[in-house]
């Protein structure tokens, strides 16, 4: 899902600027482990009774309509058949963040869904992206004012909207088709709440292929090779690496994208991190992620306007070849189609290089989720569930592709990528095919320190050392854990 920090007024609708929200995203309250017993039990009672009520109304809606396979989990039929044929004519509202490219994806999807379900209308509504949007979603859910279906992050931000209290668990045969990493990221306490929205994508380095060809460079698989490439590029009079701190969230890509390299060396890093047992300042692999940023800053390989440039500047630069490499999410590269359409084939992708060429791989960001709040009832609920199911079908994904070229695999088995995907998607696919991928830390842990982007900017502009930054981030993480009520 592309849901990102504030959209700049006057700016172009940055399709997928928004991806950054995944990065910008930080987690919020998760569990009331310390909640006073009375309030906990009340909440529990309320939620279980309303689950029952919702389930009842859902099943009654199901019985009233002739075919309602979405609630029969035994149907092992092909996904297209899981869309209920006999939905009552009803209008449901669908809430997505604005200015993030999601509207563009939603339009063809809604068109296809309405065509497949005559009588059902989907009213597309928008909300702000980024942290302001998160707060709006929480407010709407807590006051019972949420749209019938809505788009929100999977991963660390999901716990903050209290799924057990506010959302209906996802149900239906289609859940069996989902990617297991997505299921893990869209579940809380073993219950799945979402259907996937859009494709997954990698986070790594976009590079200008003509420059690599001209200088005879090889795509680096180790950090040493990467730095050697940078030296050669610099010697040739070209800016080696772009950074764009004008959009603060973009400062996080090198750090977050390095997570695969951390995980191959420490497979239980995420679990230990969530439990507070591992600190970035004291864990050599974690600290290395901060040091990579520091090395780039110290090597003098960054663009001159790194402090003020924005995402679109970076994408334009790497496509036009004024800079050789730009650490970015592959999904954000989709914007190049609008910015520099004739250079779209010049941009390739490689994962953040690690210490060992043999284990080098890609860190993956999963799709956002489409959720149903508990306030959706009756015929609307049946339609909303059909909408959730539709997104996992081939028709659903093809409609999404029409809205935006996918930068990586879809999260549902029946979906396939089109043949004419951009180069960066093909490059990403190589890692996926080789099984050399890890899901980003923010999908594996509910905790993300909210100040990460600022801390990394301090490393990038030289006002903080990597060690100091790691210590600061550890403190930020401790605070986030406390505020989530985790011990």
């Amino acid at each position, binding site marked *: 899902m592309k849901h990102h920090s504030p959209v700049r007024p006057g700016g172009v609708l940055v399709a997928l600027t928004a991806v950054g929200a995944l990065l910008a995203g930080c987690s*919020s309250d998760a569990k009331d482990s310390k909640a006073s017993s009375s*309030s906990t039990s009340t909440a529990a009672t309320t939620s279980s009774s309303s689950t029952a009520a919702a389930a009842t109304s859902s099943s009654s809606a199901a019985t009233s309509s002739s075919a309602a396979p979405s609630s029969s989990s035994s149907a092992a039929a092909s996904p297209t058949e899981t869309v209920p044929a006999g939905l009552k004519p009803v209008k449901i509202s669908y809430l997505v963040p604005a200015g993030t490219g999601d509207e563009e994806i939603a339009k063809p999807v809604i068109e296809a869904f309405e065509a497949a379900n005559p009588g059902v209308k989907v009213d597309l509504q928008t909300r702000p992206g980024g942290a302001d949007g998160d707060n709006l979603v929480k407010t709407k859910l807590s006051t019972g004012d949420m749209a019938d279906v809505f788009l929100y992050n999977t991963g660390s931000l999901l716990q903050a909207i209290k799924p057990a*209290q506010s959302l209906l668990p996802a149900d239906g045969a289609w859940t069996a088709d989902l990617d297991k990493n997505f299921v893990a990221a869209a579940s809380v306490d073993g219950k799945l709440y979402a259907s996937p929205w859009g494709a997954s994508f990698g986070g790594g380095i976009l590079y200008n292929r003509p420059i690599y060809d001209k200088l005879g460079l090889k795509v680096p698989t180790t950090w040493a090779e990467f730095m050697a490439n940078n030296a050669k590029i610099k010697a040739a009079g070209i800016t080696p690496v772009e950074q764009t*701190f004008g959009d*603060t969230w973009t400062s996080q890509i090198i750090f977050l994208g390095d997570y695969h390299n951390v995980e191959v060396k420490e497979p239980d890093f995420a679990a230990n991190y969530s439990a507070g047992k591992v600190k970035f300042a004291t864990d050599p692999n974690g600290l290395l992620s901060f040091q990579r940023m520091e090395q780039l800053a110290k090597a003098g390989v960054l663009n001159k306007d790194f402090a003020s440039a924005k995402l679109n500047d970076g994408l334009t630069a790497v496509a036009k070849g004024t800079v050789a490499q730009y650490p970015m999410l592959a999904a954000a590269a989709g914007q190049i189609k609008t910015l520099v359409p004739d250079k779209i084939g010049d941009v390739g992708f490689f994962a953040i290089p690690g210490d060992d060429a043999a284990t080098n791989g890609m860190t993956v960001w999963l799709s956002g989720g489409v959720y149903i709040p508990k306030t959706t009832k009756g015929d609307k609920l049946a339609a909303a569930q059909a909408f959730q199911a539709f997104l996992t079908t081939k028709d659903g994904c093809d409609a999404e592709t029409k809205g935006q070229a996918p930068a990586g695999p879809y999260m549902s088995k029946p979906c396939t990528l089109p043949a004419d995907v951009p180069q960066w998607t093909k490059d990403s696919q190589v890692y996926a095919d080789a099984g050399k991928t890890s899901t980003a830390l923010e999908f594996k842990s509910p905790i993300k320190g909210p100040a990460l982007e*600022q*801390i990394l*900017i301090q490393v990038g502009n030289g006002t903080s050392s990597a060690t100091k930054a790691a210590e600061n981030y550890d403190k930020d993480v401790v605070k986030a854990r406390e*505020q989530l009520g985790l011990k």
Partner: protein
Amino acid sequence: MSLVAVGHLWPAATTPTKGTPSMATTRAPPKRPTGRSRARRRSGKRYRGAYPYWFIAAPAVVYGIYFVLPTVVSFYFAFTRWDLFTSTWVGLKNFRTFFQEQALVIGLKNTLIYAVLTSGLKVVLGMALAVLLTSEIRARGYLRSVMFFPTLVSTIGVGLTFTVLMNPELGVINSALDTFGISGPSWLVDPHLALYSVALVDVWKGVGLATVIFIAGIVSIPSEYYEAARVDGASSWAVFRLITLPLSKPATATVILLSFIGGLRSFDLIWAMTKGGPGFASDVVASVIYKQYQAGFYGLSTAGNVVLFLLITVIVLPLSWLLNRKQVDL
């Protein structure tokens, strides 16, 4: 704008007058420092206002619901971990966390620098402009309007405009400096300069209001003083130092208080221009608080607001008392 109107902006309690009978039964408006005798006459027990109390009922309800109630409730939520769905009592933990916040130390320092700098510049520049605009110059009315104009523009609009103007590579300011052979600084993206750049814009935007208050103060000085001074052969500087400056003290106090409070709780302009960045270089207390809110740490950000409330009170109450204590002696 009259001084009395400006006076409404200060809490009446901060201008105690010795020997005045209890104010509780009266509705006397906040007194002008020089209004002692009149106030005493008005505040007799049998004094009845021209309007009944229920005239304030409607505004009081709005004020109560949207200001008093949230304020009171916030003191409770400051002691909880709150996610909008549930809140859990955590005692003083939020305050401890808030004071350990790494950006807070920078934020506190920056807040004070920002408040002192903007309020100082507004007083000095505002006074200078007011003196200029009350003297006999050409196009005075036009200049007064022009000078007040920035105050009327939306803060966010001003912030975004200056962000573009101050862009180190493409901005108009640095391009203009370039033509004179000066390579301009990086303004908002230089960690050492960002706060001062924003402060300058704040002064540009806020000096108009300060000037208007000063103009009101200067215009209300009886012209006899100036005539007498001229007869005695006083220089312009002497007139300014011995008449204008001391007699516009109430206006000065107002400007200092308003701009200082404004500086302490300043947020919108900083958020529009730097979001507290680069890194944490231009964070102020209010932006640190807002970031906690953005992160969904509602209890923690409420605690931060309570701290900011107390901080402003602790700084401004004595300042207000000090500024309003003395009567002007000529």
